[in-house]
């Protein structure tokens, strides 16, 4: 693999060909927030909060760093007025669903996002897909998936698989940035099981 030279926030770096701008930046210690990215998972590019400014051939545009591959002589700016504006609005949109998520609130503080800007619709889930993708890509179980599309999209456990696969795993739980996952799981488990799962489910 050859090395690709690029500039991030004024610093000249070299990155492995094929990796993303996000990976390159983080390996050099630059901070870029992300909600749907996970080192063990394929880049997904859904939350768009890792948006950065990238200059290619003298033209600057917003790109999503977790899915944008490093390019020769790319000039990346990880924070700018444009970047912050986009991140702030994304946070405000997500906070209408998960106003109490610690991760979101910390980011909101940093970017000056107003958690009350949009009407509350506490569905908790922000559709980062970490649980769905972890279950599929790492565990190979596909016990949780997305259903519906657009604004009615939600995560759902497959009841039959929950009964056989989930009890001793639960590795997706700590991944969830809003705790919506646990709620969805308990709900499904309660539907398929005669034993009251929530009593044991305290750890």
């Amino acid at each position, binding site marked *: 693999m050859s090395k690709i030279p690029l500039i991030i926030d004024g610093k000249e770096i070299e990155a492995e060909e094929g990796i993303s701008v996000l990976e390159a930046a983080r390996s050099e210690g630059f901070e870029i927030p992300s909600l749907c990215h996970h080192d063990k998972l394929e*880049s997904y*590019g*859904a*939350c*768009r*909060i890792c*948006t950065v400014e990238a200059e290619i051939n003298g033209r600057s545009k*917003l*790109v*999503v760093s977790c*899915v*944008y*591959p490093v390019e020769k002589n790319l000039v990346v700016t990880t924070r700018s007025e*444009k970047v912050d*504006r*986009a991140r702030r*609005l*994304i946070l405000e*949109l*997500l906070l*209408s*669903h998960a106003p109490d998520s610690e991760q979101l609130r910390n980011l909101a503080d940093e970017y000056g996002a107003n958690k009350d800007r*949009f*009407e509350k619709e506490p569905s908790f889930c*922000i*559709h980062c*897909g970490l649980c769905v993708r972890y279950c599929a890509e790492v565990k190979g179980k596909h016990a949780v998936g*997305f259903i*519906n*599309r*657009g*604004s*009615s*999209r939600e995560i759902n456990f497959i009841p039959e698989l929950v009964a056989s696969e989930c009890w001793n795993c639960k590795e997706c739980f700590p991944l969830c940035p809003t705790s919506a996952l646990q709620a969805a799981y308990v709900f499904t488990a309660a539907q398929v099981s005669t034993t009251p799962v929530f009593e044991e489910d305290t750890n």
Partner: protein
Amino acid sequence: MPRINSPDELEKIRNEILSQKDTNKPCISICAGTGCLACGAAEVIAAFKEEIEKQGLEADVDTKGTGCPGFCERGPIVVIYPEEICYLQVKPEDVPEIIAQTIKENKVLERLIYLDPSTNESATRESEIPFYNNQERLIISNNIKIDSKSIEDYLAIGGYSALKKVLFQMTPEQVLEEVKKTNLRGRGGGGFPAALKWEGSRNAPEPEKYVIVNADEGDPGAFMDRALLEGNPHLILEGLMIGAYTIGAREGYIYVRQEYPLAVENVKIAIKQAEEYGFLGNNILGSEFDFNVKVHQGAGAFVCGESTALMTALEGRAGEPRPKYIRSNIRGLWEKPTVLNNVETWANVPLILNNGADWFNSYGTDRSKGTKIFSLVGKINNTGLVEIPMGMTLREIIYKVGGGIPGNKMFKAVQTGGPSGGCLPDSMLDLKVSFDELTEAGSMMGSGGMIVMDEETCMVDVARYFLDFLSDESCGKCVPCREGVKQMLKILTNITQGRGQAGDIELLEELGEVIKGISLCALGQTAPNPFLSTLKYFREEYEAHIKDKKCPALYCKELISYYIDPEKCQACMACLKKCPSDAVTGGKKTIHIIDQDKCTKCNTCLDVCPPRFNAVRKISGEPVPPPIPEEERTIARGSKEK
């Protein structure tokens, strides 16, 4: 049918087909496209067959169900060759007379030919009708000449001669050069040069490559691709084969939406015929070129018209787009180089190869060559499909081809480019229609939807309608599209329902900017356009809704009231009897009053009030005048107006 194994055999078969056709023998072509079928074309075809049999004319007259010629407003359409007599809105009961008069006596039935509503001039032949003769019908004109289910008909009009030429007289490089010279731009929306896309795939090192026809046409009111695929499926296949030969693909897919059953049927028949004749399969026409095509039916998601979502769906997964930083012509279907073009783009390819780049370039503007098919719909006299040379003005399309606005209403806007496009006002009517000009004006070419709106259309509601569509059709993967479009829709709904607030426009603009800037795919990136373009040209309508709670077009239900003018009401009882919610009070000699609490704003009273009284009107942005006192409601002459 024996397989054709060489170019000579192809010409031999073509000559045989042509020798069996008597060009002087009358042929009755009846449009069997979806639009005309919905108007009863199947019954008309059956009536012709029955009548011909009854009269014993089977040997003397041919009949065929054809593709859509475009004049949907006047369907079912019948064209009788060789005279090319065009009959419109034909009903089964007209058929015996057509046979008796036109076929047997060679007389034209005046009542079925075109009569121009504005000039009162009649037109007997298809080519004399203004709707047609102001177009440049390079692609769609063949639709009415061939039976959509007959490969013989396609061969008779020179079908597969471009394929033959390409396979035996040209190298893939030469084909690429020829297409490049035309700068043929993608007809599906983006307008990306097809040859550049092809070249990228051709040069990609992976040996396995794919070609795809995007027939997942989903824009509200658009049906160009359906008409081409239904009407002339072999043309699309031929274009696809030429593309496959050029880039080195051996497999192709036609991704067609399930909602187009006739297109699916016709293209499947066409593929089977092409396989039998040896236009598909191994060693095509003895050229050693192998190519096969499969049909994939979409499950109804609008987003699957987006190239990467379409490919994901083809792979058997949920149709969600993926990041496009590496283009799909390099890494597409199953990560292989894939050329995806729209139906109409592929349809242009055989024409270019048959007639040459110079011929093609004689149509259009500097940067947009050839023609474009639009589906002209909405408040327009001649609803239908129109094929016009690039560079024709909106005014010419709407007034010359489209015949203007019905009911002498004023033109207000034309929406181009589907849900991702924009609305252009009358000040833009002289805009030349081409890729770059439309984009510069804040709209886009898109796949060719053209929705005409009159003075009674509320532009805020139009934006709300399209955002509603897009919110529903968003796949939900990325935040700006899923959440942002939903918020835009909420705000727009509030505005149309009288709950608009100061700051709404600014918030919509902010949302629009971010959604445009960072959404994953073209659906999200263009979703704010309906709002942004209506704001650009009709800002005062937004302000009237928000500040004055007034809908200037008198359309938004929550912002209008119905009122009967007591000076004009003749107590005729028409509205009183027809009101479905019993909101009209009064009597035979008593002036009618609308009870605003009961009124559901269904417009019935306005519809039924006799025009000579013209007593009912809509009010917006001002209070409804109080009802006149009961003692003043009696009118002496009311009785004569029953």
